[in-house]
Protein backbone atom coordinates (compact mmCIF):
# COMPACT_ATOMS: atom_id res chain seq x y z
CA UNK A 1 0.00 0.00 0.00
CA UNK A 2 1.34 3.35 -0.92
CA UNK A 3 1.48 6.19 1.59
CA UNK A 4 -1.60 7.76 0.02
CA UNK A 5 -3.21 11.00 1.14
CA UNK A 6 -5.95 9.24 3.10
CA UNK A 7 -3.30 7.43 5.18
CA UNK A 8 -1.41 10.66 5.76
CA UNK A 9 -4.63 12.37 6.86
CA UNK A 10 -5.29 9.73 9.51
CA UNK A 11 -1.87 10.28 11.08
CA UNK A 12 -2.17 14.05 10.81
CA UNK A 13 -5.53 13.92 12.60
CA UNK A 14 -4.08 11.74 15.34
CA UNK A 15 -1.13 14.10 15.84
CA UNK A 16 -3.48 17.10 15.87
CA UNK A 17 -5.50 15.32 18.57
CA UNK A 18 -2.36 14.93 20.70
CA UNK A 19 -1.65 18.65 20.32
CA UNK A 20 -5.19 19.61 21.26
CA UNK A 21 -5.08 17.34 24.30
CA UNK A 22 -1.84 18.99 25.42
CA UNK A 23 0.02 15.67 25.08
CA UNK A 24 2.32 16.58 22.18
CA UNK A 25 5.98 16.33 23.11
CA UNK A 26 8.51 18.73 21.66
CA UNK A 27 12.27 18.36 21.93
CA UNK A 28 14.39 21.28 23.04
CA UNK A 29 17.80 21.59 21.42
CA UNK A 30 20.69 21.86 23.84
CA UNK A 31 23.84 23.49 22.49
CA UNK A 32 26.19 22.47 25.28
CA UNK A 33 27.30 19.34 27.19
CA UNK A 34 24.99 18.08 29.95
CA UNK A 35 25.66 20.11 33.10
CA UNK A 36 24.09 22.31 35.78
CA UNK A 37 24.22 25.23 33.32
CA UNK A 38 23.14 24.47 29.77
CA UNK A 39 22.31 26.41 26.63
CA UNK A 40 18.85 25.65 25.33
CA UNK A 41 17.26 26.63 22.02
CA UNK A 42 13.52 26.86 22.63
CA UNK A 43 11.33 27.37 20.78
CA UNK A 44 13.21 25.89 17.80
CA UNK A 45 14.85 28.64 15.78
CA UNK A 46 15.29 31.06 18.69
CA UNK A 47 18.73 31.89 19.99
CA UNK A 48 20.01 29.57 22.71
CA UNK A 49 19.37 30.68 26.28
CA UNK A 50 21.62 29.82 29.23
CA UNK A 51 19.53 28.13 31.92
CA UNK A 52 19.99 26.12 35.10
CA UNK A 53 19.07 22.51 34.47
CA UNK A 54 16.67 21.19 37.10
CA UNK A 55 15.36 18.20 35.15
CA UNK A 56 18.31 15.96 34.25
CA UNK A 57 19.00 12.51 35.66
CA UNK A 58 22.60 13.68 36.01
CA UNK A 59 22.40 13.00 39.76
CA UNK A 60 26.13 12.74 40.40
CA UNK A 61 27.16 15.38 37.87
CA UNK A 62 29.31 12.84 36.03
CA UNK A 63 27.79 13.20 32.55
CA UNK A 64 30.52 15.61 31.47
CA UNK A 65 33.09 14.99 34.20
CA UNK A 66 36.62 15.54 32.80
CA UNK A 67 37.96 12.20 34.07
CA UNK A 68 35.02 10.31 32.58
CA UNK A 69 35.42 12.11 29.26
CA UNK A 70 39.17 11.37 29.32
CA UNK A 71 38.56 7.68 30.04
CA UNK A 72 35.98 7.52 27.24
CA UNK A 73 38.52 9.08 24.85
CA UNK A 74 41.08 6.47 25.86
CA UNK A 75 38.51 3.71 25.35
CA UNK A 76 37.81 5.05 21.88
CA UNK A 77 41.54 5.07 21.08
CA UNK A 78 42.37 1.59 22.36
CA UNK A 79 39.15 -0.37 21.70
CA UNK A 80 37.64 1.51 18.76
CA UNK A 81 34.30 3.14 18.03
CA UNK A 82 31.95 0.22 17.39
CA UNK A 83 31.90 -3.56 17.48
CA UNK A 84 29.47 -4.21 14.63
CA UNK A 85 28.14 -7.25 16.44
CA UNK A 86 25.84 -8.55 19.12
CA UNK A 87 27.62 -9.73 22.25
CA UNK A 88 27.63 -13.47 21.61
CA UNK A 89 29.04 -13.38 18.07
CA UNK A 90 32.02 -11.02 18.22
CA UNK A 91 30.82 -8.12 20.35
CA UNK A 92 32.33 -8.90 23.75
CA UNK A 93 35.62 -7.21 24.58
CA UNK A 94 37.63 -7.68 27.76
CA UNK A 95 36.33 -4.32 28.97
CA UNK A 96 32.69 -5.45 28.73
CA UNK A 97 33.38 -8.26 31.17
CA UNK A 98 35.49 -5.93 33.31
CA UNK A 99 32.57 -3.50 33.62
CA UNK A 100 30.16 -6.34 34.42
CA UNK A 101 32.46 -7.53 37.22
CA UNK A 102 32.72 -4.01 38.62
CA UNK A 103 28.92 -3.62 38.58
CA UNK A 104 28.56 -6.98 40.35
CA UNK A 105 30.86 -5.84 43.11
CA UNK A 106 29.27 -2.39 43.37
CA UNK A 107 25.71 -3.71 43.50
CA UNK A 108 26.50 -6.61 45.84
CA UNK A 109 25.23 -9.37 43.55
CA UNK A 110 26.60 -12.59 42.02
CA UNK A 111 26.83 -11.66 38.36
CA UNK A 112 25.87 -8.95 35.84
CA UNK A 113 24.98 -8.76 32.16
CA UNK A 114 25.07 -5.52 30.17
CA UNK A 115 22.14 -4.52 27.97
CA UNK A 116 21.88 -1.65 25.46
CA UNK A 117 19.63 0.13 27.99
CA UNK A 118 17.71 -0.58 31.19
CA UNK A 119 14.57 -0.41 29.07
CA UNK A 120 15.99 -3.41 27.19
CA UNK A 121 17.00 -5.14 30.43
CA UNK A 122 13.44 -4.81 31.75
CA UNK A 123 11.97 -5.85 28.41
CA UNK A 124 14.02 -9.05 28.37
CA UNK A 125 14.53 -10.25 31.91
CA UNK A 126 11.08 -11.60 32.86
CA UNK A 127 10.59 -13.65 29.73
CA UNK A 128 14.09 -15.09 30.16
CA UNK A 129 13.65 -16.35 33.72
CA UNK A 130 9.91 -17.06 34.20
CA UNK A 131 7.28 -19.32 32.65
CA UNK A 132 3.53 -20.02 32.74
CA UNK A 133 3.94 -21.71 36.11
CA UNK A 134 5.07 -18.48 37.79
CA UNK A 135 3.55 -15.17 38.90
CA UNK A 136 4.89 -11.62 38.76
CA UNK A 137 3.51 -9.30 41.45
CA UNK A 138 4.36 -5.68 40.68
CA UNK A 139 3.89 -2.38 42.47
CA UNK A 140 1.31 -0.41 40.47
CA UNK A 141 3.68 2.51 39.93
CA UNK A 142 6.60 0.60 38.37
CA UNK A 143 8.25 2.11 35.32
CA UNK A 144 6.65 1.63 31.89
CA UNK A 145 9.56 -0.54 30.73
CA UNK A 146 8.76 -3.08 33.46
CA UNK A 147 5.11 -3.11 32.40
CA UNK A 148 6.24 -3.82 28.83
CA UNK A 149 8.61 -6.56 29.99
CA UNK A 150 5.87 -8.21 32.04
CA UNK A 151 3.55 -8.16 29.03
CA UNK A 152 6.13 -10.04 26.99
CA UNK A 153 6.34 -12.78 29.62
CA UNK A 154 3.99 -15.77 29.87
CA UNK A 155 3.95 -15.82 33.68
CA UNK A 156 0.77 -14.63 35.39
CA UNK A 157 0.67 -10.89 36.08
CA UNK A 158 -0.62 -9.30 39.23
CA UNK A 159 -0.17 -5.95 40.94
CA UNK A 160 -0.34 -4.46 44.43
CA UNK A 161 -1.27 -0.96 45.53
CA UNK A 162 1.69 1.39 45.55
CA UNK A 163 3.99 0.51 48.50
CA UNK A 164 1.07 -1.16 50.30
CA UNK A 165 2.64 -4.06 52.17
CA UNK A 166 -0.61 -5.59 53.42
CA UNK A 167 -1.95 -5.70 49.86
CA UNK A 168 1.32 -7.30 48.71
CA UNK A 169 0.99 -9.88 51.49
CA UNK A 170 -2.55 -10.74 50.33
CA UNK A 171 -1.24 -11.26 46.81
CA UNK A 172 1.64 -13.44 47.99
CA UNK A 173 -0.84 -15.58 49.95
CA UNK A 174 -3.16 -15.80 46.95
CA UNK A 175 -0.40 -17.09 44.68
CA UNK A 176 1.13 -19.78 46.89
CA UNK A 177 0.13 -22.39 44.31
CA UNK A 178 2.58 -21.01 41.73
CA UNK A 179 6.07 -22.43 41.12
CA UNK A 180 7.84 -19.08 41.60
CA UNK A 181 6.59 -15.75 42.91
CA UNK A 182 8.57 -12.62 42.14
CA UNK A 183 7.88 -9.24 43.72
CA UNK A 184 8.68 -6.41 41.32
CA UNK A 185 9.32 -2.80 42.33
CA UNK A 186 11.22 0.32 41.43
CA UNK A 187 13.82 1.31 44.04
CA UNK A 188 13.06 5.02 43.72
CA UNK A 189 9.80 5.80 41.94
CA UNK A 190 10.55 8.22 39.15
CA UNK A 191 7.49 10.45 39.32
CA UNK A 192 7.04 10.79 43.09
CA UNK A 193 10.65 10.30 44.19
CA UNK A 194 9.62 8.01 47.06
CA UNK A 195 11.71 4.99 48.04
CA UNK A 196 10.41 1.40 48.01
CA UNK A 197 10.07 -0.33 51.39
CA UNK A 198 12.62 -2.93 50.33
CA UNK A 199 13.29 -4.15 53.88
CA UNK A 200 9.61 -5.03 54.32
CA UNK A 201 9.40 -6.46 50.81
CA UNK A 202 12.37 -8.75 51.52
CA UNK A 203 10.79 -9.85 54.83
CA UNK A 204 7.53 -10.71 53.07
CA UNK A 205 9.39 -12.45 50.26
CA UNK A 206 11.21 -14.59 52.82
CA UNK A 207 7.96 -15.44 54.59
CA UNK A 208 6.10 -16.37 51.40
CA UNK A 209 9.00 -17.83 49.47
CA UNK A 210 9.27 -15.23 46.72
CA UNK A 211 12.09 -13.61 44.76
CA UNK A 212 12.63 -9.85 44.76
CA UNK A 213 13.28 -7.70 41.69
CA UNK A 214 14.18 -4.02 41.93
CA UNK A 215 14.79 -1.48 39.16
CA UNK A 216 17.29 0.88 40.76
CA UNK A 217 17.75 3.23 37.83
CA UNK A 218 16.91 6.30 39.94
CA UNK A 219 19.06 5.07 42.86
CA UNK A 220 22.29 3.39 41.69
CA UNK A 221 25.26 5.56 42.55
CA UNK A 222 23.70 7.77 45.22
CA UNK A 223 20.96 6.18 47.37
CA UNK A 224 22.39 4.52 50.49
CA UNK A 225 25.37 5.66 52.54
CA UNK A 226 27.88 4.57 49.91
CA UNK A 227 25.52 5.02 46.95
CA UNK A 228 25.00 1.33 46.19
CA UNK A 229 21.26 1.77 45.89
CA UNK A 230 17.92 1.24 47.56
CA UNK A 231 18.95 -2.11 49.00
CA UNK A 232 21.80 -0.43 50.88
CA UNK A 233 19.48 2.37 52.05
CA UNK A 234 16.97 -0.20 53.39
CA UNK A 235 19.55 -2.47 55.03
CA UNK A 236 19.07 -5.41 52.63
CA UNK A 237 22.26 -5.13 50.59
CA UNK A 238 23.16 -8.54 49.13
CA UNK A 239 19.60 -9.83 49.38
CA UNK A 240 18.27 -8.82 45.96
CA UNK A 241 17.59 -11.63 43.51
CA UNK A 242 17.49 -9.32 40.47
CA UNK A 243 18.54 -5.69 40.13
CA UNK A 244 18.16 -3.86 36.86
CA UNK A 245 19.74 -0.47 36.52
CA UNK A 246 21.01 2.04 34.00
CA UNK A 247 24.29 3.66 33.06
CA UNK A 248 22.18 6.44 31.55
CA UNK A 249 21.47 8.44 34.70
CA UNK A 250 23.87 8.88 37.64
CA UNK A 251 26.46 6.44 36.28
CA UNK A 252 27.76 8.71 33.55
CA UNK A 253 24.47 9.29 31.77
CA UNK A 254 25.47 7.97 28.32
CA UNK A 255 23.48 4.80 27.71
CA UNK A 256 23.45 1.13 28.62
CA UNK A 257 21.87 -0.87 31.40
CA UNK A 258 22.19 -4.22 33.07
CA UNK A 259 20.60 -7.17 34.78
CA UNK A 260 22.51 -8.02 37.94
CA UNK A 261 21.65 -10.70 40.47
CA UNK A 262 21.70 -14.43 41.13
CA UNK A 263 24.23 -16.18 38.92
CA UNK A 264 21.78 -18.57 37.25
CA UNK A 265 19.22 -15.83 36.55
CA UNK A 266 21.87 -13.68 34.87
CA UNK A 267 23.02 -16.69 32.85
CA UNK A 268 19.41 -17.32 31.76
CA UNK A 269 19.37 -13.75 30.45
CA UNK A 270 22.62 -14.37 28.55
CA UNK A 271 21.03 -17.43 26.95
CA UNK A 272 17.49 -16.16 26.40
CA UNK A 273 16.91 -12.42 26.79
CA UNK A 274 15.95 -11.19 23.37
CA UNK A 275 17.10 -7.54 23.67
CA UNK A 276 20.53 -8.90 24.71
CA UNK A 277 20.63 -11.52 21.95
CA UNK A 278 19.38 -9.37 19.10
CA UNK A 279 20.78 -5.90 19.63
CA UNK A 280 24.25 -4.52 19.35
CA UNK A 281 26.80 -4.60 22.13
CA UNK A 282 27.33 -1.48 24.25
CA UNK A 283 29.95 0.67 22.46
CA UNK A 284 33.52 0.48 23.84
CA UNK A 285 33.64 4.23 24.44
CA UNK A 286 30.66 3.97 26.83
CA UNK A 287 32.06 0.91 28.58
CA UNK A 288 35.37 2.71 29.20
CA UNK A 289 33.58 5.77 30.55
CA UNK A 290 31.36 3.68 32.84
CA UNK A 291 34.37 1.82 34.28
CA UNK A 292 35.85 5.19 35.25
CA UNK A 293 32.53 6.25 36.81
CA UNK A 294 32.48 3.15 39.02
CA UNK A 295 36.12 3.71 40.01
CA UNK A 296 35.34 7.32 40.99
CA UNK A 297 32.27 6.54 43.09
CA UNK A 298 33.67 3.37 44.65
CA UNK A 299 36.55 5.32 46.17
CA UNK A 300 34.68 8.37 47.42
CA UNK A 301 31.18 9.27 48.54
CA UNK A 302 31.86 12.97 48.07
CA UNK A 303 29.51 13.37 45.12
CA UNK A 304 26.56 11.50 46.61
CA UNK A 305 27.09 13.39 49.89
CA UNK A 306 26.95 16.69 48.01
CA UNK A 307 23.79 15.54 46.22
CA UNK A 308 22.23 14.69 49.58
CA UNK A 309 23.11 18.16 50.92
CA UNK A 310 21.70 19.80 47.78
CA UNK A 311 18.45 17.81 48.12
CA UNK A 312 17.96 18.82 51.74
CA UNK A 313 18.76 22.46 50.95
CA UNK A 314 16.43 22.59 47.90
CA UNK A 315 13.56 21.05 49.85
CA UNK A 316 14.14 23.52 52.69
CA UNK A 317 14.12 26.56 50.38
CA UNK A 318 10.95 25.53 48.55
CA UNK A 319 9.15 24.38 51.70
CA UNK A 320 9.94 27.64 53.49
CA UNK A 321 8.65 29.55 50.45
CA UNK A 322 5.32 27.73 50.78
CA UNK A 323 5.41 25.28 47.87
CA UNK A 324 3.48 22.03 48.17
CA UNK A 325 6.13 19.28 47.75
CA UNK A 326 5.78 15.51 47.68
CA UNK A 327 7.45 14.13 50.79
CA UNK A 328 10.62 12.14 50.24
CA UNK A 329 14.36 11.84 50.62
CA UNK A 330 15.50 11.23 47.05
CA UNK A 331 16.82 13.95 44.71
CA UNK A 332 13.53 13.80 42.81
CA UNK A 333 11.51 16.64 44.32
CA UNK A 334 8.04 17.07 42.79
CA UNK A 335 6.46 20.52 43.17
CA UNK A 336 2.73 19.78 43.20
CA UNK A 337 0.46 21.98 41.07
CA UNK A 338 -2.40 19.47 40.42
CA UNK A 339 -3.70 21.30 37.34
CA UNK A 340 -2.10 20.34 33.99
CA UNK A 341 -2.29 23.80 32.42
CA UNK A 342 -0.89 25.43 35.55
CA UNK A 343 2.06 22.99 35.47
CA UNK A 344 2.78 23.90 31.85
CA UNK A 345 2.41 27.64 32.46
CA UNK A 346 4.71 27.60 35.48
CA UNK A 347 7.35 25.54 33.59
CA UNK A 348 7.24 27.98 30.65
CA UNK A 349 7.59 31.03 32.92
CA UNK A 350 10.45 29.40 34.81
CA UNK A 351 12.26 28.84 31.54
CA UNK A 352 12.10 32.55 30.78
CA UNK A 353 13.53 33.14 34.27
CA UNK A 354 16.49 30.92 33.33
CA UNK A 355 15.31 27.69 34.99
CA UNK A 356 14.75 24.54 32.98
CA UNK A 357 12.16 22.27 34.64
CA UNK A 358 9.36 20.30 33.06
CA UNK A 359 5.66 19.96 33.89
CA UNK A 360 4.25 16.42 34.14
CA UNK A 361 0.56 15.64 33.88
CA UNK A 362 -1.87 12.86 32.87
CA UNK A 363 -1.21 10.25 31.49
CA UNK A 364 2.37 10.37 32.82
CA UNK A 365 0.97 10.94 36.34
CA UNK A 366 -2.64 10.34 37.52
CA UNK A 367 -5.31 12.90 36.68
CA UNK A 368 -5.31 15.85 39.06
CA UNK A 369 -1.70 15.15 40.11
CA UNK A 370 0.11 17.53 37.73
CA UNK A 371 3.46 18.74 38.95
CA UNK A 372 6.87 20.09 38.09
CA UNK A 373 9.43 17.40 38.78
CA UNK A 374 12.69 18.96 39.91
CA UNK A 375 15.83 16.85 40.09
CA UNK A 376 18.95 17.69 41.99
CA UNK A 377 22.51 17.05 40.90
CA UNK A 378 25.91 17.04 42.57
CA UNK A 379 26.83 19.42 39.73
CA UNK A 380 24.59 22.09 41.29
CA UNK A 381 26.32 24.61 43.51
CA UNK A 382 24.43 26.42 46.27
CA UNK A 383 24.29 29.49 44.02
CA UNK A 384 22.43 27.48 41.35
CA UNK A 385 19.86 26.36 43.89
CA UNK A 386 19.42 29.87 45.30
CA UNK A 387 18.87 31.31 41.83
CA UNK A 388 16.44 28.52 40.97
CA UNK A 389 14.55 28.90 44.26
CA UNK A 390 14.29 32.68 43.76
CA UNK A 391 12.82 32.09 40.29
CA UNK A 392 10.34 29.52 41.65
CA UNK A 393 9.26 31.99 44.33
CA UNK A 394 8.80 34.78 41.75
CA UNK A 395 6.60 32.56 39.58
CA UNK A 396 4.85 31.08 42.61
CA UNK A 397 3.83 34.61 43.62
CA UNK A 398 2.64 35.37 40.08
CA UNK A 399 0.21 32.43 40.24
CA UNK A 400 -0.57 32.98 43.92
CA UNK A 401 0.16 29.40 44.95
CA UNK A 402 2.65 29.97 47.78
CA UNK A 403 1.37 28.72 51.12
CA UNK A 404 -1.48 26.93 49.38
CA UNK A 405 -2.11 23.21 49.64
CA UNK A 406 -3.82 20.76 47.31
CA UNK A 407 -7.38 21.83 48.15
CA UNK A 408 -6.74 25.54 47.70
CA UNK A 409 -4.77 25.12 44.45
CA UNK A 410 -7.52 22.92 42.99
CA UNK A 411 -10.17 25.42 44.14
CA UNK A 412 -8.30 28.16 42.32
CA UNK A 413 -7.25 26.33 39.14
CA UNK A 414 -9.38 23.18 39.02
CA UNK A 415 -8.16 19.61 38.53
Amino acid at each position, binding site marked *: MAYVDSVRTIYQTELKGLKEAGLFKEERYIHSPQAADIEVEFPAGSSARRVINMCANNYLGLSSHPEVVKAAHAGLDVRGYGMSSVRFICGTQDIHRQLENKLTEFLGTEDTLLFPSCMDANAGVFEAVLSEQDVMI*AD*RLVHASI*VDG*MRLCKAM*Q*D*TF*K*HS*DMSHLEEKLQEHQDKRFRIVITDGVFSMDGDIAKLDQIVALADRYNAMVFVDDSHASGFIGKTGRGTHEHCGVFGKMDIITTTLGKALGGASGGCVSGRRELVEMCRQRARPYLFSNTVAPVIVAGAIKVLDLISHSTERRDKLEWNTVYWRKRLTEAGFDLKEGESPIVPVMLYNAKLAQDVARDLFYEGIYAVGFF*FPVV*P*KGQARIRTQLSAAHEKEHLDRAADAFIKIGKKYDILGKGKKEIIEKYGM
Partner: protein
Amino acid sequence: MDEITKVVLDYVVKEYIEDGDDREITPDTPLISGGIVDSFSMVSLKRFLEKKYQIQIPDADATPEAFDSVKSIVALLARFKKN
Protein backbone atom coordinates in the same frame (compact mmCIF):
# COMPACT_ATOMS: atom_id res chain seq x y z
CA MET B 1 -28.37 -2.77 44.07
CA ASP B 2 -28.36 -6.41 42.95
CA GLU B 3 -25.99 -9.00 44.38
CA ILE B 4 -23.58 -9.17 41.40
CA THR B 5 -23.25 -5.39 41.20
CA LYS B 6 -22.48 -5.29 44.91
CA VAL B 7 -19.82 -8.04 44.66
CA VAL B 8 -18.06 -6.30 41.75
CA LEU B 9 -18.28 -2.87 43.36
CA ASP B 10 -16.87 -4.16 46.65
CA TYR B 11 -13.98 -5.83 44.83
CA VAL B 12 -13.17 -2.68 42.83
CA VAL B 13 -13.12 -0.53 45.96
CA LYS B 14 -10.99 -3.01 47.91
CA GLU B 15 -8.57 -3.72 45.06
CA TYR B 16 -8.09 -0.30 43.49
CA ILE B 17 -8.91 2.50 45.90
CA GLU B 18 -5.90 3.60 47.91
CA ASP B 19 -6.21 4.27 51.64
CA GLY B 20 -7.10 7.91 52.17
CA ASP B 21 -8.73 8.25 48.75
CA ASP B 22 -12.24 9.42 49.57
CA ARG B 23 -13.66 9.19 46.03
CA GLU B 24 -17.07 7.57 45.98
CA ILE B 25 -17.35 4.74 43.49
CA THR B 26 -20.79 4.03 42.03
CA PRO B 27 -21.79 1.48 39.37
CA ASP B 28 -21.47 4.27 36.77
CA THR B 29 -18.08 5.66 37.82
CA PRO B 30 -15.64 5.48 34.87
CA LEU B 31 -12.86 3.24 36.10
CA ILE B 32 -10.33 3.07 33.27
CA SER B 33 -11.12 6.31 31.42
CA GLY B 34 -11.43 7.94 34.86
CA GLY B 35 -7.89 6.91 35.78
CA ILE B 36 -8.92 4.69 38.73
CA VAL B 37 -7.91 1.37 37.15
CA ASP B 38 -5.17 1.15 34.52
CA SER B 39 -4.99 -1.60 31.93
CA PHE B 40 -1.91 -3.00 33.70
CA SER B 41 -3.88 -3.55 36.92
CA MET B 42 -7.07 -4.70 35.18
CA VAL B 43 -5.87 -8.32 34.97
CA SER B 44 -6.58 -9.02 38.63
CA LEU B 45 -10.21 -7.91 38.14
CA LYS B 46 -10.64 -10.22 35.15
CA ARG B 47 -9.15 -13.13 37.10
CA PHE B 48 -11.39 -12.40 40.11
CA LEU B 49 -14.52 -12.45 37.95
CA GLU B 50 -13.51 -15.67 36.19
CA LYS B 51 -12.80 -17.44 39.45
CA LYS B 52 -15.83 -16.14 41.31
CA TYR B 53 -18.33 -16.94 38.55
CA GLN B 54 -16.57 -19.95 37.02
CA ILE B 55 -16.42 -18.41 33.55
CA GLN B 56 -13.83 -17.65 30.91
CA ILE B 57 -13.74 -14.12 29.49
CA PRO B 58 -11.79 -14.21 26.21
CA ASP B 59 -9.11 -11.52 25.94
CA ALA B 60 -10.94 -10.09 22.92
CA ASP B 61 -13.92 -9.32 25.16
CA ALA B 62 -11.90 -8.05 28.12
CA THR B 63 -11.57 -4.60 26.58
CA PRO B 64 -10.99 -1.35 28.48
CA GLU B 65 -14.49 -0.32 27.36
CA ALA B 66 -16.10 -3.46 28.79
CA PHE B 67 -14.28 -2.91 32.10
CA ASP B 68 -14.87 0.82 32.27
CA SER B 69 -17.57 0.78 34.93
CA VAL B 70 -19.10 -1.68 37.36
CA LYS B 71 -22.27 -1.47 35.28
CA SER B 72 -20.49 -2.46 32.05
CA ILE B 73 -18.64 -5.26 33.88
CA VAL B 74 -21.95 -6.63 35.17
CA ALA B 75 -23.33 -6.52 31.61
CA LEU B 76 -20.28 -8.44 30.39
CA LEU B 77 -20.75 -11.00 33.15
CA ALA B 78 -24.41 -11.45 32.24
CA ARG B 79 -23.36 -12.27 28.68
CA PHE B 80 -20.85 -14.92 29.69
CA LYS B 81 -22.89 -16.39 32.51
CA LYS B 82 -25.73 -16.98 30.06
CA ASN B 83 -23.44 -18.69 27.59
